[in-house]
């Protein structure tokens, strides 16, 4: 069912052609307009694709968002700094932790707050566990999009084991609200390390099975090879980041390039691929999932077992952050996640802009790659870009 993306056949110059497709005459009877989503098993969250089809080939695609719009950025302008940390985690449901970290980090940077060493390590551990949970969910989604439902059962059950760890560590499974300005809310409970290592061992073993079952599967290969090829020339003009860029051989990873938290004390290399299609991106993410397990083990080996996990903080009822401006970013599972914050010295933030990688991956990139695809492959393509709508509409 896979068809080569039409743009890949037109050479490199097409990669830099940002023009919008010409509207077609639907009354001619030659074309069909079809909506995929917002309620559809083959879509990543509450968003929809407005597809124009000629036969079963997509000739036009428009991404529609807004189904989850809650105006987070506006809400944050009307809440105090401490109130906002309960809001930010809701911006990306499968990866709330990156929002918690970046919001806290931006506030700390503008306030000149240094967090204790133990908090640095606990945050790193928390972020890597989040990465692992998110990747496990994604692997299941990608496999399911190609019609193989055994793998999601495995990966989602192991994601639940990671959520168990979150529950122990933070008291919550999804919205942890664990990383707060000044540090984290708690240390690790007794016996956590052993349980975490057990989960890592079983997950690693399961990933070996996933590799055999999913990546050596003839149907997966047939449907993902050649699907949604990202021309390396598109990387900068389209703002492509994270595994989508690394799968094309572009070695960019904020954890390595601009290290934050304890990443400069961990041993790892940037993983890159050479296949720019959906299969290459899936392989890339599988390797990064394994890398994440390795980083979690390193955190457990090296993190301090005692010491403070919260810095001395001002009274939150009277907390005014000095006037300033900053942009902080971190490498989430999909690439660069950033918080731009402007403060004016009052108790309220003047402006927060949340930069999520899905903003370009799900709109500009998706609309481009979908053209030329077979209708049956659109779900697989969309999942292969790993997008979350809430971070687009914020």
């Amino acid at each position, binding site marked *: 069912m896979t068809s080569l993306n039409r743009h890949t056949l037109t050479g490199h110059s097409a990669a830099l052609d940002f023009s919008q497709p010409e509207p077609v005459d639907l009354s001619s009877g030659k074309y069909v307009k079809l909506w995929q989503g917002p309620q559809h098993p083959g879509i990543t969250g509450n968003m929809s694709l407005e597809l124009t089809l000629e036969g079963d080939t997509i000739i036009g695609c428009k991404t529609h968002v807004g189904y989850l719009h809650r105006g987070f950025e506006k809400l944050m302008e009307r809440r105090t700094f401490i109130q906002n940390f309960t809001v930010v985690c809701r911006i990306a449901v499968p990866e709330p932790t990156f929002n918690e970290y970046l919001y806290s980090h931006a506030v700390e940077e503008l306030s000149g707050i240094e967090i204790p060493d133990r908090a640095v390590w606990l945050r790193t551990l928390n972020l890597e566990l989040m990465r692992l949970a998110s990747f496990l969910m994604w692997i299941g989604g990608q496999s399911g999009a190609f019609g193989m439902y055994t793998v999601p059962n495995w990966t989602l059950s192991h994601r639940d084991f990671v959520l168990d760890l979150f529950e122990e560590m933070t008291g919550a499974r999804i919205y942890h609200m664990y990383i707060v300005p000044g540090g984290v809310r708690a240390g690790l409970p007794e016996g956590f390390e052993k349980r975490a290592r057990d989960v890592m061992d079983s997950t690693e073993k399961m990933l070996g099975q996933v590799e055999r079952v999913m990546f050596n599967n003839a149907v997966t290969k047939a449907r993902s090879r050649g699907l949604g090829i990202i021309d390396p020339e598109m990387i900068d003009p389209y703002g492509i980041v994270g595994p989508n860029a690394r799968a094309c051989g572009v070695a960019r990873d904020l954890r390595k390039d601009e290290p934050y938290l304890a990443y400069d004390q961990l041993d790892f290399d940037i993983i890159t691929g050479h296949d720019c299609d959906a299969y290459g991106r899936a392989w890339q993410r599988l390797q990064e999932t394994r890398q994440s397990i390795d980083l979690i083990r390193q955190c457990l080996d090296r993190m301090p077992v005692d010491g403070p996990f919260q810095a001395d903080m001002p009274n939150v009822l009277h907390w005014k952050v000095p006037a300033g401006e900053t942009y902080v970013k971190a490498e989430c599972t999909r690439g660069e996640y950033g918080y731009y914050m402007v403060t004016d010295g009052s108790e309220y933030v003047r402006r927060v802009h949340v930069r999520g990688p899905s903003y370009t991956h799900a709109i*500009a990139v998706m609309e481009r790659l979908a053209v030329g695809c077979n209708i049956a492959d659109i779900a697989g393509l969309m999942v292969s870009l790993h997008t979350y709508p809430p971070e687009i509409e914020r």
Partner: protein
Amino acid sequence: MNEKTLNTMLEKLKQEFDISDIVEHKPRLTTFTVSKQHAETLIRELRDREAYTHLNFMTCIDYIEDGIFSLVYMLHNYGKKHSLGVHVNISRNGEEVFSIHTLWAQAWTYQRELREMYGIRFTDSPRLDEDFCLEGWDQIPPMRREFDTKKFSHERFGHREGRSSEVPREHMKVQLYPNRGGDEE
């Protein structure tokens, strides 16, 4: 990026484009302001000549008290690991702005969002008037400071019995210092 290289670049930009309000927030982030007439050329030059090839994001800050919007273009140089925040101040009263959709593929999406959320128009930006998040929105653009979310919510959805809310600061004062009437600082 080392300080000398950065200063040389900024000095050059100052001469060519008359940039002002240069602030080095941290070693990897500098911001400055440029006038609208120079901004388009400056941004293109930064991308093509100075290798700020990555558009991190594009956003807007509403300075209602000064009657201006400050557009922010955050650009990143991967080689030098340095970001530049370019501020362009425009009037809040319907001033039209150049479009950068020919420079980055995702720029028109940002511009479509800014049109919807702030009412800013970008010249020749594709699909500018298509709805982004909001459908059938008939109020003032909601990210403008004068848009009152609470008032809108009350008017649109009405009051629901059984719900009350407190001003957190006042409420906590009373909780923490009940014997002093909640006036302790």
